[in-house]
């Protein structure tokens, strides 16, 4: 409820003219932001807009390069997280910070002055309210992603903070858990606590926030009470071009009589069981499902990255021995990982080096040919529209979208017959996203079989010829042709059968 707002009181936070530069690139350009006590303020923005950076400055993790910050009217310098904590400002981060060797209880209480007994007394009711069930004394290494996120949320709720910042707190949670969180947030707001809530889910924002601020490319472009704004206003503020992008209607291709380029039979491993399906050349097979349904594990097993998997995988009729990515690539199957930073890209090295990492043997028998290598690089810069000023600039200096293109180039350089894309558009800006879509269509036209794993269901629906839905490790069924709609795919992801097999 939006009543109970504290009027005519000094704002909790006032930031003016905040600038932040990273490696020569300005990420925040003169941003202003304010937070009233008892208010739930949502911060929206696309990838790379700077919303996390702004919050990290408030929370003391980063220092602003220019600008002022006032807390409860007084000018302050927050140059470390402990300084922020001292003021009563706490941020629940987007990526959970876990101490894997320490117990859950210790993780929760780290930095708090409570002894073990008092801590567990305080922790239990909070965990109950969020329906967070886990063993307090087990090492935190065993927690699932969702549990880790809840851990961070509990940490935030345990603090006696006057400003609480939540950075994408619901990305790994179920609807129920998210609802519990929102209930808590409302309760805290009623007590006068100011809450900042970063999200990219408009539904949540409209439901919970009192005020919304929209950040785009480091500049605050919109700010106002949620009552006065529509979702469309917000979308337009975040991505002015994207909403008007004409989406070329895809004709769903039916599977022709050709032989499948990828066959998976009875594949099982830790996170999934009994996967069976076929992929045909020139087809885009979407794989939908919630986080944790086992899709990435399935893809990794197919690509040979999982030595414990059992079952059969055939590429072009030839069974894979699943010895590893090298063998798979030799047979024409390549996997583009979900987490490009951890598994895909070599940030400190030249972008070119990432692109050619999988095909070095082709660049020369003994010595590498710089000419050949550069030619490969230029080819992909052109075909994928990669924006860089030198092939040799470190991959870490590229934007998220261009980094993803570099990783794609690496995969495409192996001239695959089957390409598995795992969340290819995660964390990249709108124009790069469009480029990736165009690439997928082009690949299909060239006869490559594309396995597209994505949590962006609109993407899956738009691009796929057929859709495979996974739930809790099993393939629920296959959607074809007219049946591929957003509603059907969403429902199926949640486990609703009624999907034709």
């Amino acid at each position, binding site marked *: 409820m939006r009543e109970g707002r504290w009027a005519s009181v000094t704002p909790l936070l006032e930031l003016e003219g905040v600038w932040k530069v990273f490696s020569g*690139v300005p990420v925040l*350009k003169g941003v202003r932001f304010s937070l009233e006590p008892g208010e739930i303020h949502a911060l929206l923005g696309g990838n790379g807009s700077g919303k996390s950076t702004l919050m990290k400055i408030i929370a003391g993790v980063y220092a602003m390069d220019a600008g002022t910050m006032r807390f409860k009217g007084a000018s302050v310098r927050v140059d470390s997280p402990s300084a922020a904590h001292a003021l009563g400002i706490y941020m629940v981060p987007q990526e959970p910070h876990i101490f894997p060797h320490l117990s859950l209880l210790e993780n929760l209480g780290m930095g708090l002055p409570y002894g073990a007994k008092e801590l567990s007394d305080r922790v239990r009711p909070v965990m109950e309210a969020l329906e967070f069930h886990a063993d307090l004394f087990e090492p935190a290494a065993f927690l699932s992603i969702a549990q880790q996120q809840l851990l961070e949320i509990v940490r935030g709720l345990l603090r006696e903070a006057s400003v609480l910042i939540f950075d994408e707190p619901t990305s790994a949670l179920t609807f129920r858990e998210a609802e519990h969180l929102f209930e808590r947030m409302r309760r805290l707001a009623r007590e006068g606590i100011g809450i900042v809530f970063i999200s990219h889910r408009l539904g949540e924002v409209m439901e919970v926030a009192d005020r919304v601020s929209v950040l785009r490319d480091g500049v605050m472009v919109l700010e106002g009470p949620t009552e006065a704004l529509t979702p469309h206003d917000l979308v337009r503020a975040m991505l002015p071009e994207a909403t008007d992008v004409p989406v070329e209607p895809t004709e769903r291709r039916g599977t022709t009589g050709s032989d499948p380029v990828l066959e998976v039979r009875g594949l099982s491993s830790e996170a999934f069981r009994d996967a069976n399906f076929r992929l045909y050349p020139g087809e885009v097979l979407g794989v939908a499902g919630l986080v944790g349904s086992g899709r990435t594990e399935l893809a990794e097993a197919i690509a040979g990255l999982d030595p414990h998997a059992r079952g059969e995988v055939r590429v072009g009729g030839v069974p894979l021995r699943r010895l590893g*990515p090298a063998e798979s690539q030799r047979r024409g199957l390549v996997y583009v990982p979900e987490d490009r930073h951890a598994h895909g890209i*070599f940030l400190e*090295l030249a972008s070119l*080096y990432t692109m050619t990492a999988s095909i070095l043997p082709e660049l020369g028998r003994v010595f590498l040919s710089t000419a050949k290598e550069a030619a490969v690089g230029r080819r992909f810069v052109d075909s994928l529209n990669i924006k860089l000023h030198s092939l040799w600039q470190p991959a870490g200096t590229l934007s998220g979208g261009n980094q993803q293109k570099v990783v794609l180039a690496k995969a495409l350089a192996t001239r695959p017959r089957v390409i598995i894309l795992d969340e290819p558009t995660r964390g990249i800006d709108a124009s790069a996203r469009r480029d990736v879509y165009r690439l997928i269509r082009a690949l299909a036209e060239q006869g490559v079989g594309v396995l597209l794993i994505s949590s962006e269901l609109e993407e899956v629906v738009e691009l796929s010829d057929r859709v495979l839905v996974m739930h809790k490790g099993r393939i629920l069924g296959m959607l074809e042709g007219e049946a591929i709609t957003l509603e059907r795919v969403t429902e199926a992801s949640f486990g609703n059968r009624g999907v034709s097999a």
Partner: protein
Amino acid sequence: MARFWKSWEFALLGLLVLEILVLGAVNSTFYDPENLFYSTLDFMHILFAALPLTLVIITAGIDISGVSVMGLASITLGLVWVAGVNVFVAAGAALLVGVLAGLLNGVFVAKTDVNPLVVTLGTLFMYAGLAQGLPSLLDLLGFKAYGSEGLAAYQYEGITGLPDSFIALTEGTVGIVPYPLILVLFFALALGLLLHRTRFGRYLYLIGVNPEAARYSGIPIVRTLVIAYVLSGFGAALAGVMLTSYMTSARADLGGDALLPIITAVVLGGADILGGSGTILGTLLAGLLLGFLRQGLLALGVTNDLIQVVIGGLLIAAMAAKQLLSRWGERRLNRRALSASQRG
């Protein structure tokens, strides 16, 4: 190529030239090229070990067992020769020992997730102990007859009386350049080509920067790592063989406390201890820099111990400077970008 002028290697080259000028000013013998080249014999073993160690460090690994391998190679050479085998074949055996030592290191590191520091710590002990006990062990195994009073007698004295042809390895020169220096340069050339021009070298960098991404990209990690550690072991053995010729005696403790200078050479040469960067040229230049520094200080009458202090301090200072410079550079870059954007 324009980048070379701003590179770390160029700075090292400049420092090297400066150093020789300064040393020469203090003691004019340093201006005599023949003398200068001859003095490299005293520290060539550092170079032989440090050059391939660069490869290992680029992969974010480390190998501290080199010092022990030097001694093991040396004593192996001595014992095999005493048994009546041609001294050069014995040298070959010593090099083989180095390869095997590196093989063990490499396989252990590549196939288990045990920290390379721990692995090579264990082999440091093991190889040193093996080197020390080898004479008695061989006696027990029945080779006693080969030594006049049994091989065990060589434990403390080392093996001397090596043939002149072998000693000549470190005595001969081509013009004014001693053989070992030529060998070092060839070794450096070979390793440099390997590192910068072959895919093996590229794999080293990729593994060092992001081992998981390397795995997903289909890079042959096990093979690459094993070769790197084998080369490191080989380099250490080569150092041991050369030292044996230079000292005219095969001893198990030949390596001494060379660990500090060896690692200093690699780090000073620009390699990041955390992996992902480094060059052979850098290590070579840094090794020469350190070596001449030591020679110069010795010529000035500075004691060995103080030299150790100096090298230790130099290592720390170099790293601290590197960190500071990169942080300042980043700050300047950001400040410039800030004012540019604020104006624009």
